[in-house]
């Protein structure tokens, strides 16, 4: 250890409101090759979708917006969102949220963060904010790549909404943006479940798998008609409601119910994560 000149720094006594910790968190998420590769897969899907529809025309009448793609390229984005909804997007959010606390515990960095002290509540606020931002970016990437590919291969112009009426291109883009926000909110709620599960274990992969299982379970329960009393309480039940944004006028009832459900899930599971982490013995 060289005899470095002493750096005379007064220990600051002032609290700083700063986004530094959040930026550091985002840098860790988006600086990781694994996560970038994951986003790459999400972005590759609309490309594959657009190209395959382009190469095999004349198969109209498909469900999930695919049939509408040839009419307006914007539908590539809607179709990609609908098709990545059951697995790809939840998987990405599961990976990030499952890793959030368990990953730090697994590396041992959690004890150093808490000794700084980062503060347990603040850590959970930062971690969850980063998950929400990731969910938003992941959804927007799918929408954006879908839009670009769609417009490039099929062109834009006025679009025919699900209700049969015509809407301008700008209106369509606006509806796509709202759909992305709606889905990002839904995935953020899933991320809160992931944050909670992540506080239960030191195994990030285990946490990720558990979040995905919860997600799949909700989807399965949502298909069992004998359990229809349960359906409105399932987070995933409301996910496909984003299609209502493609009606004229927009049908907002399901959207509102979906948003409230997402908000409740997010609140309950964030609090559960807080209750768990704030009393947990950090022995990793």
């Amino acid at each position: 250890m060289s005899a470095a000149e002493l750096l005379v720094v007064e220990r600051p006594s002032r609290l700083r409101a700063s986004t530094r910790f959040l930026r550091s968190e985002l840098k860790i998420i988006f600086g990781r090759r694994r996560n970038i590769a994951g986003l790459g897969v999400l972005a590759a899907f609309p490309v594959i979708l657009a190209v395959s529809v382009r190469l095999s025309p004349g198969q109209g009448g498909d469900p999930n917006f695919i049939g509408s793609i040839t009419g307006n390229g914007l539908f590539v984005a809607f179709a990609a969102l609908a098709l990545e909804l059951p697995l790809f997007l939840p998987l990405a959010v599961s990976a990030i949220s499952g890793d959030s606390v368990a990953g730090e515990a697994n590396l041992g960095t959690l004890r150093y963060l808490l000794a700084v002290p980062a503060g347990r509540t603040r850590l959970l606020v930062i971690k969850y904010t980063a998950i929400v931002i990731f969910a938003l970016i992941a959804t927007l990437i799918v929408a954006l790549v879908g839009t670009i590919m769609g417009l490039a291969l099929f062109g834009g112009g006025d679009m025919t909404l699900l209700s049969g009426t015509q809407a301008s291109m700008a209106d369509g883009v606006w509806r796509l943006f709202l759909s992305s926000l709606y889905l990002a909110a839904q995935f953020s709620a899933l991320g809160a479940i992931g944050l909670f599960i992540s506080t239960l274990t030191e195994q990030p992969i285990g946490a990720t798998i558990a979040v995905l299982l919860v997600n799949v379970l909700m989807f399965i329960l949502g298909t069992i008609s004998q359990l229809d009393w349960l359906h409105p309480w399932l987070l995933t039940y409301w996910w496909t409601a984003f299609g209502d944004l493609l009606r004229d006028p927009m049908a907002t009832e399901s959207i509102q119910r979906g948003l409230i459900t997402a908000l409740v899930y997010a609140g309950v599971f964030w609090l559960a994560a807080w209750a768990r982490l704030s009393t947990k013995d950090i022995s990793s």
Partner: protein
Amino acid sequence: MTSALADSPPIVSSGLTKRFRRQIAVDSIDLEVPAGAVYGFLGPNGSGKTTTIRMLLGLISPTAGEISLLGVQMPTAARDVLRRVGSLVEGPAFHPYLSGRANLGRLDAADRYSDPRTSRKRIDAALDRVGLLAAASKRYRAYSLGMRQRLAIATSLLMPRDLLVLDEPTNGLDPQGTREVRHLISDLASEGATVLVSSHLLAEVEQICTHVGVMYEGRLVAQGPLSELRASTVQTVRVDTDRPEDAARVLAELGLSEIASSTGYVTATLGDVAVEKIMPNLVNACVPVLGFAVLQPSLEDVFVSLTGEGFDVSG
């Protein structure tokens, strides 16, 4: 540096206990680390040192007992006090794919009080101080064990600290590195910080500690200034002489015990006999004294006398 001139010592615990399911890891210990001390927190592996340190830093909550850190009750005041405490807990832990510098940057960013404008400067100064500046932009995963340990020490140097809690800071370091860390700790202490340094290697800390606390199977079996602790254990005198039998007789008359004479010298246990009485009596008995010494017990001797056992892993 605002010094720890608080009325109470930087670390005080009373009845501090931690029970994990069946096992009592820490059993009602009363630590007291005085201001300005370099406190050697000693004990074999598994004796409860790290559990105690985790409780001091608010990472785990005690089953019973209280902790006051820099005069403030833990863990309630952890938020305000911990930033005055630099710590190294149970080995280094960092993000493997970030550089050493980026890892320190992350910890600095997590500190609500740190000034982003001085961040880079403080990080580089900390890296320089532990001899890592040249490897600052290397990924952590490429660091050797010794470099990782140095980086962990650097985290505690990002801010001026009143108290440093260093758990096994020399683990994995080569002899040169160990020496450097010893110097660093001495430097920090001379700048006014109180240091608690845990170790399972007695000889390593013996040279820098002013105070010692000895853990054994979850209990704090001894604590105090190193000199007192040494004095409290059995002291041995050694008389070099060419007439060991005569010397042994004089020592026996004085009341020393466990006298052992060999060619050229006699050793005996001092007991309650005043050291200054020995020489005049030897001279009066015309024993030629070639050398006389009161042998300082090593920490190892102290430990064995406290626990009746060697310094091995306790279960």
